[in-house]
């Protein structure tokens, strides 16, 4: 099970721990700036709009749109060699933040700006935020 032992798990830090904990509990969360209201992912220590440091967590609706996607035909990490070809996508949540993800039903047809819905899946003991096109 070399894929198991070599899988690139997220590095959980004090900054990102709330995000991964919420995801493991079935909630996709993002940061909201307490000063200016800007919404952010991935987690950051200061708001890049107003530079304030009072960032709280909110739960996302899980609705978003597909900004772009690619299909890997070459594995840059051996843990993904068995999955080729696989997709990686950028999704924009309806609350604003954008994240890197995978689309779980590419056979349904991918197109930019197509609506997507959150699907939380377990991967090597970690909950990941994936999406399906709807």
């Amino acid at each position, binding site marked *: 099970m070399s894929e198991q032992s070599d899988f690139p798990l997220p590095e959980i830090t004090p900054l990102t721990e709330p995000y991964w904990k919420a995801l493991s509990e079935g909630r996709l969360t993002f940061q909201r700036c307490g000063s200016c209201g800007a919404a952010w992912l991935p987690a950051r220590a200061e708001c890049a709009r107003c530079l304030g440091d009072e960032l709280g967590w909110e739960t996302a609706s899980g609705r978003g749109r597909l900004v772009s996607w690619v*299909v890997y035909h070459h594995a840059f990490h051996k843990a993904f060699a068995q999955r080729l070809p696989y997709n990686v996508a950028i999704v924009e949540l309806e609350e604003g933040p954008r994240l890197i993800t995978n689309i779980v039903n590419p056979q349904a047809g991918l197109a930019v700006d197509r609506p997507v819905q959150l699907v939380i899946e377990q991967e090597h003991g970690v909950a990941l935020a994936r999406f399906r096109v709807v």
Partner: protein
Amino acid sequence: MRGNIVIAGIGQTAFGKLPGRSTISMNVEACRKALADAAIDKSVVDAVFVKYPSSRFEGKYGQKVAEALGLQPRIGGVWDQAGASNISMISFAAMAIEAGQCEVALACFADNPNTGSRKVFERSLGDEAAYGWFGVTAGYAMIARRHMAEYGTKHEDLAAVAIACRRHGAANPNAQLRSPLTLERYMSSRFIVEPLRRDDCCLLSDGGAAVLVMSARRARELGVAHPVPILGFGQGQTSWEVPQRPTLTSTCAAISAQTAFRMAGVGLKDIDVAQIYDCFTITVLMTLEDYGFCKKGEVGHFVREGRIEIGGELPINTSGGLLSETGMGGMQLVLEGVRQMRGSATLQVPGARKCVVSNQGGIMHTHSTLILANE
């Protein structure tokens, strides 16, 4: 400042596979040849600007290069804007000369990922590695997909860039990849990260390149034979990582070009030849749009039917670019710009009087622009 500063000499190593050569050694060879090209002694050099090797960051690298050159510069060090660094270093050298901080500057770059390590170009992109998000190619592919979707840009448009660069590289005896490319062969080449194919991706190369920068007055005093005036330069920084970038299909290359053209006091129509950073074919398409050579979304039409090949309206990358000459971080494009302005390029654009050169780095995070003249 327009035209007050010149590129007085250029030098380069061989390109391709240079096993056993350190990047320091390649930098020294490139600088030695730039000094020889200008026919001046190294003792007049009082500034050394260095881009660190992209494949391996190393502290105090600028000082290590200066030591290997036997110099104690008044100004020196490493400048990091990834692939935009080389033109930016030339512009900082020009500003330092104007400010009286130095008189004669070497700017140089060398790297050896071909015989060394290419890991840096394939690394995971943070916590997102769990989703399989790896490698520089994927970032450019993400941008290319969005550009294709928004503007109807076609694989044939990407191919036009690769075909032009490969045609020009085939004529360059120093180029690493000298096989021309047909549309048929392009379309049948495999995807690396779709929508980008192998032929959309630049080479991995060992090599070094250097330029010597000084005032036009100093060049006259030193009897430099072929000084090429710098008319303008600019920079722009998109900065945001690709997923967080508010728009994927344009970059701050536009700001960089506006700054450079305003400084130069010339317009796009004055440009006879262009060296456009071509780490991936999509980069060239978007740079041509962001510079204003065509409207956003119309670049497919602009690059078709050989318009960017030698003999066309705007020949680009006349020595082959990163796709064919060498995959290094951009200084070699400046060298070709200088050769075009001297009239000494292998694929010389007849009567070329103005050349624009672009550098960019990261995944379109940084951009820099240089405008050279023959006057």
